[in-house]
């Protein structure tokens, strides 16, 4: 098993907390982590659709790089990884 830290901001933080430590099986991907996180709150639809696909507006940071929701299935996690989730931005 791996421990993965997930940090959320703005509206995602209201729904899923500022930070969660998830226990995931070896071989889990970023998409798996987002799906598990979505299941921890009453507003899973904010992060994933009915088929479990990450919504395209979710901005994902992993190891200082942005990951497209479409590519999250391809990114393998290792124990201790940190994922940051941003809702659509509204600065400026």
């Amino acid at each position, binding site marked *: 098993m791996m421990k993965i830290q997930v940090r959320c901001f703005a*509206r995602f933080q209201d729904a899923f907390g500022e930070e969660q430590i998830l226990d995931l099986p070896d071989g889990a991907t970023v998409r798996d982590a987002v799906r598990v996180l979505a299941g921890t709150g009453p507003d899973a639809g904010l992060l994933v659709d009915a088929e479990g696909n990450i919504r*395209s507006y979710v901005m994902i940071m992993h190891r200082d790089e942005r990951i497209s929701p479409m590519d999250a299935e391809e990114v393998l996690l290792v124990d201790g990884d940190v994922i940051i989730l941003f809702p659509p931005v509204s600065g*400026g």
Partner: protein
Amino acid sequence: MIAITRDPIDPDRFIKAAKNPKTGGIVTFIGTVRDDGIEALDLEVCEEVALSDLEKIASQARDEYNLNSVDIVHRVGRMEITDVILVIVVGAAHRQEAFAACSSILESIKQFVPIWKKDIRKDGARWHFHENQE
């Protein structure tokens, strides 16, 4: 200067600093808090990512538009109506590059820099959240 601050921003300071013998055009964007029936605006940031993003945006604009100077200062935290949220000041030899660079920088900030607005109203607070970005 590329910065994120919780303090009020004085745009004049950056406009004065942009004056340069090689600069023929200084274009400034000042974003302010608009009264949309709100009491105040609260901005949250992921500073570690946002500051890095702003530095990359500035660097790319400097190269792409051959700028002599570029300043981006974004305020976060609670702000009142008319307070300055964002200042972008770019200096270039000619106006075309300066206008284009300022607009490009602003659009990049609005597209992906992790900063979020929350309206503070009498009946509660509400994030700006546009699902149609999907």
